[in-house]
């Protein structure tokens, strides 16, 4: 047993200062996170950000260079995978092709030397839970992608592990199945109360499924928060750009603590940024938050905008606008099809554009390092 001071129950799974390098490449850089029992956490980030490596370290499939892992108060840093307590589902399903669905699900139960009757009962229960009570006799190749992934999930759940690891489990499925399965998995997770870590590069998936999202970049955490926080208040330009779509406009801070000079305009934001005057900044606003047309004239932060392009995208239009005095920057606005009917918009026309102070974020330009 480890030092009791280290194993205080701060979280069911504690990741402490984990670092992993592959030669010169730092895949995971001094990563720490506490995950509560029953929580659904998403590791979100672009490919190569280290999220899959971190998952493999949690599973014991990779050895970290430094750092510790605690699960349920026990130090698991040095345990081989089969001595840890987790179930895992991969993108490829990795169902054993020569075993039927039933045999696949029973695989982990048989190694536990349970009585046959109990195994059969558990398998039937899981098949029912997955909504696939009748496919037990079928081989994986006879099942659809969505069915295969449900069986893979059932196989991982069968021995009732304390922790569920999902490595891009939905990426191989087609869009429609993906949307329905992600809700199913979320409900199942809540129903079973099993602590779950999902790795994904799909921000929508993370927003829909997670209790908490961990946005990763280059091996470290950019931001941890509930989905609304991540979307509404991205802590860094990276998060702002990776999750959803974000407009970035160049500007200068000041002179007031909540003021920004953008081209020839003076804008205000709801929260003071407290940056020294004339500090270069980026002003970030989401396309759906940009107000366009006469209705936008109420309130402050209204500037004239020229329409450069109008794209029809079904339920909404996307407008590409440039602001007077800011010829190099493009502002994208999304306008619903209903609003569009009330507005008379054409390429080349000029309209009032409002950037709502409470929906704007200011990042000092130092944070933009490495951003495009």
């Amino acid at each position, binding site marked *: 047993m480890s030092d009791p001071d280290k194993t205080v129950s701060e979280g069911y799974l504690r990741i402490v200062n984990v*670092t992993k*390098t592959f*030669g*010169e490449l*730092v895949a995971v*850089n*001094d990563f720490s996170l506490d995950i509560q029992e029953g929580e659904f956490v998403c590791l979100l980030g*672009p490919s*190569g*950000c280290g999220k899959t490596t971190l998952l493999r370290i949690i*599973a*014991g*499939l990779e*050895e*970290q*260079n*430094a750092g*510790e892992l605690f699960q349920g108060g026990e130090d698991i840093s*040095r*345990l*081989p*995978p*089969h*001595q840890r307590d*987790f*179930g*895992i589902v*991969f993108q*490829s399903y*990795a169902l*054993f*092709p*020569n075993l039927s669905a039933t045999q696949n699900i029973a*695989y*982990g139960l*048989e*190694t*536990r030397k349970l009585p046959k009757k109990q195994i059969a009962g558990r398998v039937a229960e899981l098949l029912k839970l997955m909504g696939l009570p009748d496919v037990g006799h079928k*081989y*994986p*190749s*006879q099942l659809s992608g969505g069915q295969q992934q449900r069986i893979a999930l059932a*196989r*991982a759940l*069968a*021995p009732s*592990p304390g922790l569920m690891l999902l490595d891009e489990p939905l990426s191989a499925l087609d869009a429609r199945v993906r949307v329905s399965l992600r809700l199913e998995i979320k409900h199942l997770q809540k129903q079973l109360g099993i602590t779950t870590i999902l790795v994904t*590069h799909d*921000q929508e998936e993370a927003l829909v499924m997670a209790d908490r999202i961990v946005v990763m*970049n*280059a091996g*470290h955490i950019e931001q941890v928060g509930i989905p609304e926080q991540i979307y509404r208040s991205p802590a860094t330009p*990276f998060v702002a*750009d*990776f999750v*959803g*779509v974000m407009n970035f406009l160049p500007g200068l801070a000041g002179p007031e603590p909540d003021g920004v000079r953008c081209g020839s305009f003076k804008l205000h934001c709801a929260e003071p940024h407290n940056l020294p005057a004339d500090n270069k900044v980026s002003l970030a606003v989401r396309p759906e938050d940009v107000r366009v047309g006469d209705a936008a004239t109420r309130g402050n932060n209204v500037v004239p905008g020229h329409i450069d392009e109008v794209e029809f995208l079904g339920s909404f239009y996307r407008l590409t606008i440039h602001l007077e005095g800011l010829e190099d920057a493009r502002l994208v606005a999304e306008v619903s099809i209903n609003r569009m009917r009330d507005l008379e918009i054409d390429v080349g026309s000029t309209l009032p554009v409002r950037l709502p102070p409470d929906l704007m974020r200011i990042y000092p330009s130092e944070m933009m390092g*490495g*951003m*495009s």
Partner: protein
Amino acid sequence: MTTTDLPVKTATVTKGFQRQRVRQKLSAEDILQRSLLVLLAAWLFVFLIWPLYRSLTRSMFDKAGEEFVGIANYIKYFSTASTSVSLRHSFNIAITSMVITVVLAFIFAYAITRTTIRGRSFLSAIARLPMFVPSLAQALVFIYVFGNNGIFTRATGINIGLYGPVGIVMSEVFYAFPHALIILVAALSMADARLYEAAQSLRASATRIFFTVTLPSVRYGLMSAAFVVFTLAMTDFGAPKVVGGNYDVLATDIYNKVVGQQDFAMGATISTLLLIPTMVAFVLDRIVQRRQLAQVTADITPLGPKRHSPLTQFALFSFCVLVAVFIISTYGVVLVGAFTRYWPYDLSFTTQHFTRFYVAGAHHRGGSFIILWNSIKMATIATIAGTSIVFSSAYLIEKTRRLNWARSILYLLSITPLAVPGMVLGLSYIFLFNDPANPFNFLYGTMSIMAISTIFHYYTVPFLTATTALKQMDPEFEYIGESLKAPFYRTFMRVIVPVALPAIISIAMYFFLNALVTISALVFLFVPGKEVASLAVMLLDDAGESAQAMALSLLIFVTGLASRGIFHLMTRGVEARTQAWTHR
């Protein structure tokens, strides 16, 4: 969404971390895996590295094996005109056979893969027949037909001067033809139809397309085939022994020095000389094959057979038929020779060559069948042991985690046997296992050592087959097994072996068929009473009992075909069983 054009920051971290690692505790399973790797290393050491080392050092001692003489033996070999000639002869034979075989096999392969001539699958089946008999059997046939008293020579009065390079090259071409054919058929079938469509849309002529598209796309296949034929012809012992006359090549030279003159030092010296060109060919072939793999992209549009001009079709068809007729008549001669009392003087029918049987001066009750039974026993041991060891070791090397350095060394050792000629392997086994001071001396003169030498002689191809089959499997099977707390050997038996069964059966067939026909490693290892059929063919020919040699060759041929049929049925059975989980 704009996720794709996001720059990924490159993090920097203190260098110190790169070296340290949080090591996982060793579990019982890890210890078992490591023990198996150690066992595998020991197996490769005792039966491959150690004997070769002994052979290499033996070449640096004097004839009695007592005094270290450095490279004196090599100097002696090259400075004696009468001996150093064998090296030149070997190169002459290998290069001539290589050129002829690759050209013939390429034309044949082109005809059966790219044109619409009739009977393509039948022709390709016939072309593979020479793999079922020892290389010296065709040499025997050539003596029956083209020898001084051969039927062709007597009928036409033309003596082609068979004994010597002519006969050896003829036999090597015949023997190596199917090996080259298989490689070239594979290369020609991998062509990308889109290249041809592009060339045609640019109005290139058929000839131009052949030289600008067809040939470049199979260049690696051609090189690979050339290396294989070169190595086979360079190292073959059977044909030069039977039909070589006074034309000494390295393989027969080793045999004469060791068996004839008991000069082990010179035998070891020559065998080292034989090892060098085959090693070079082996390394070049590995490089070429890696290039070829890189050339194959996942999404090619395969090019099917296409009708050529009537003249081309006819010319190619005639060529293929000619080759097929030549092969079939060769076996026809074996069949006739086996049942003929005294070729070519007394052509009456007899079965006595199967029942009356003298080999190495001793009479064997049961005739040739007892010898054939020895072969089947040896081949069965080699097949069962070889298949299990090769597949398990490929699994251990390919699919276990950690100890990467050890696994890559074992991989390298597992593919080197291809570079070791059978003669060299067999001789090195004598040096090691005939030494009474050696703890493994008890193996000398047993069926087991013959089987083990056969396993190592044919180790590499099955090993690569197994590795390829394992690579095609989802790497996550093992992880899933571990997460479900199933020991690795359970996942191996329950999932890996059943899924790889078709590959396992083809490995077993490869071992069995080769074990039936091989002689080169075995000429040094057999003891009276333990002769296998392929060896006995050679001994009978030595004793002038050509008809009995023919009879025995026929038995080997029939056994090979029959076992091939059995393996085919096994594959069919496995496919029927796996149909359920491979198709919808």
